[in-house]
């Protein structure tokens, strides 16, 4: 996942998951990493294939959509003030996502290594705990250490 940008955001409140998706869409369009079709595609994809995942101690959501709406690879990490209910990926019902990891993927097969690393790390309670408690300015370096260093990929942190 070459030149994958990391965006981070904390201290933000949402009314519901659609509010989260709208925010992601707007920010990613503004950042220039996605096409104008992305916000709509993101909403549609989540409606059809929800992305809430219950991990051991916390729940996360990994909203994403087809690669055709992406211009360049990016990850947008959002830690909302309060958990947001997302529909579960593999079950009925919702989970309270305390972390939202939006994946902007241009070439799924090329970026598989990074995704494997990301999902592997998210399974570790201590990594998630760090992401949930660390100050905003440290988030991208924590992410880099755990996800990118092993994936041997280049990244550049961006704050918005």
């Amino acid at each position, binding site marked *: 996942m070459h030149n994958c940008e990391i965006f981070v955001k904390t201290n933000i409140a949402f009314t519901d998951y659609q509010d989260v998706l709208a925010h992601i869409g707007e920010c990613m369009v503004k950042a220039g990493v996605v096409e104008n079709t992305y916000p709509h595609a993101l909403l549609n994809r989540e409606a059809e*294939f929800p992305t809430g995942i219950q*991990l051991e101690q916390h729940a996360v959501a990994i909203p994403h959509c087809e690669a055709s709406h992406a211009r360049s690879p990016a990850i947008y990490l959002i830690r909302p003030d309060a958990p947001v209910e997302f529909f579960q990926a*593999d079950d009925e019902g919702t989970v309270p996502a305390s972390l939202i990891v939006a994946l902007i993927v241009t070439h799924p*097969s090329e970026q598989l290594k990074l995704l494997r690393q990301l*999902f592997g790390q998210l399974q570790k309670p201590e990594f998630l705990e760090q992401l949930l408690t660390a100050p905003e300015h440290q988030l991208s370096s924590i992410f880099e250490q755990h996800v990118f260093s092993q994936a041997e990929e280049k990244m550049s942190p961006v704050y918005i």
Partner: protein
Amino acid sequence: MKRKIIVACGGAVATSTLAAEEIKELCAAQNIEVDLVQCRVTEIETYMDGAHLICTTARVDRKFGDIPLVHGMPFISGVGMDALREQILTLLQE
């Protein structure tokens, strides 16, 4: 006997590839020969002929005849992974 397994995901981020790798490893360790087919959940019907198992990382609300369906999300989340491995082996050995 060779087992045909379909691994399907929603199609955007290749979570099915991650699940497929886990299943491949699991079956190799148990000397179960497998024929793995990877597709999107919308394409399962196209490949289901002769399949012994379907594993999806996205929710599907429909049935595929007598072919057992398991949820592969534990391979992504890590929660319930051992139970899922057991379940898959049991289904494949029946």
